């Protein structure tokens, strides 16, 4: 059904901390790995070892540069995957009902058995979160690792999306935004998380935590007092070493 379900109490999604992400792309690779081997059609690559390789990914990391007027430039690594929007435009445009939003937890999924591969949902998404698989001719998108988060065959610590599990810096957080007391809701409130492209009216569930303003130019130090001399004569161990070396 491509009609959006009534707003669910449970809203699963991610908070991505742009202050912490170092742009290592581990989430990209773990996502590609998990989603190639599990739910749905594999994420294919075309011409993978040729001159013009192209492949499907559900998560990609862009890097942006901010150049303030009064400070040095700052790089921001920016992971982007499906934001599981509350009013997902990719769902309502689907002619077959393949694209749907789950009533129970708000995850946006594609039923690949029903997808005709028309590509209209990818056009309707402002974030570039959907990519057509060139081998299977069906639309691929982030499943929020629906086959991990409810999978009781996995250890408890693995029952989170692969991108969150693999992030070495803890820049990605998974949780329920419908619960005001959840860790992700607290983070959103404390750090004043933002929506991407709010003007598109998609009401994304995933939120982004903005980086702190970091370096500022220091006053230029005078030549010579960069490292002031703290001791003319060595003391303690260094004094002994100094003498021992002189005796040699």
């Amino acid at each position: 059904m491509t009609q959006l379900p009534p707003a669910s109490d449970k809203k699963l999604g991610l908070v991505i901390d742009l202050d912490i992400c170092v742009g290592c792309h581990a989430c990209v690779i773990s996502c590609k790995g998990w989603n190639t081997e599990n739910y749905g059609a594999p994420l294919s690559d075309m011409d993978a070892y040729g001159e013009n390789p192209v492949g499907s990914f559900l998560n990609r990391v862009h890097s942006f540069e901010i150049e303030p007027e009064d400070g040095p430039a700052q790089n921001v690594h920016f992971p982007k995957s499906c934001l599981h929007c509350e009013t997902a435009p990719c769902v309502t445009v689907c002619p077959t009902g393949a694209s749907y939003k789950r009533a129970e937890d708000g995850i946006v999924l594609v039923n690949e058995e029903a997808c005709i591969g028309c590509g209209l949902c990818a056009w309707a998404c402002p974030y570039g979160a959907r990519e057509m698989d060139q081998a299977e001719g069906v639309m691929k998108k982030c499943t929020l690792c629906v086959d991990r988060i409810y999978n009781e065959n996995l250890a408890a610590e693995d029952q989170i999306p692969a991108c969150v599990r693999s992030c070495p810096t803890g820049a990605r957080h998974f949780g329920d935004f419908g619960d005001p007391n959840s860790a992700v809701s607290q983070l959103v409130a404390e750090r004043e998380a933002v929506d991407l492209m709010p003007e598109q009216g998609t009401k994304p569930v995933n939120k982004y935590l903005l980086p702190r303003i970091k370096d500022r130019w220091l006053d230029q130090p005078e030549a010579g007092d960069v490292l002031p001399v703290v001791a003319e004569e060595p003391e303690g161990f260094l004094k002994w070493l100094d003498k021992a070396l002189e005796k040699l």
Partner: protein
Amino acid sequence: MNPAPSVIIFTVLSGLGFGMLFWLGLGQAETGGMIGFWLFAMAFILSGGGLLASTFHLGNPQRFWRAFSQWQTSWLSREAILAVAALGLMGLFGLRQVFFAQDWVWLGRAGAGLSLLTVLATAMIYAQLKTVPRWNQPGTVVLFILLALAGGALITAQAGLAAGLFGLAGLAQLWVWYRGGQRFAEAGSTLASATGLGGRGQLRLFEPPHTGRNYLLDEMVYRIGRKHALRLRVIALLGMSILPAAIMLASGAGLLAGGAGLLAAGLAGAVHLIGVFAARWLFFAEAEHVVGLYYGRHS
């Protein structure tokens, strides 16, 4: 947006075909005997052939029947249902007219209405997309409908009406181009809104996520050929509107009688089709999708 040939051929030909069916359904053309047979045959080949071409860009065309299910929200689903309904009613209407010389006026009118609604649904598939601000304007729908009506009027030999509609379509196209140029700024999406990193200084893409191409870039960040955009606009406007309008005006005024008139109508049709193809190519090639912002475009 990627100007895929299958989608350009589909929208141009099926628009023309449904425009013909509209006038045929209203009984605005000679529909008895051989002339009627060929007119209906042509309308069905154009509209049906266009629909068939549209399936060539599908990843899994064998599942097309599923597209009839989601009419409550999806303009693409509505288009599929309306198209089949229009072709069904007009097929029955055409059979009765051509082979039995019988007329069910209500059936023709219903078929004409559905034919026009099909063109509206096609246009709405594009006009509904907030992500492509250039398309996201009422003018898109007006233009698609006027082009279908004008082309249909030409082939059903309504010279004066066709001339007027060609003129109106040209004006609509100018308006759509003018408004289209303003729409991206009006939509308000910028790299700052796309990343939430606004207000901190100059923002630019430092590194894309990958060095090669991807589906998003191929499909939605099409850049080739824009440098000829102005030249193509002139060709499109001359072809789709000005030249055929002039030819049909001359023809309607009785300057071209008999064989010359038929030849002129054929020429007007050919020129019109070339113009509409050029305009439709530009419709896709010039359209900017907001996802391009993440790849350092449109800013």
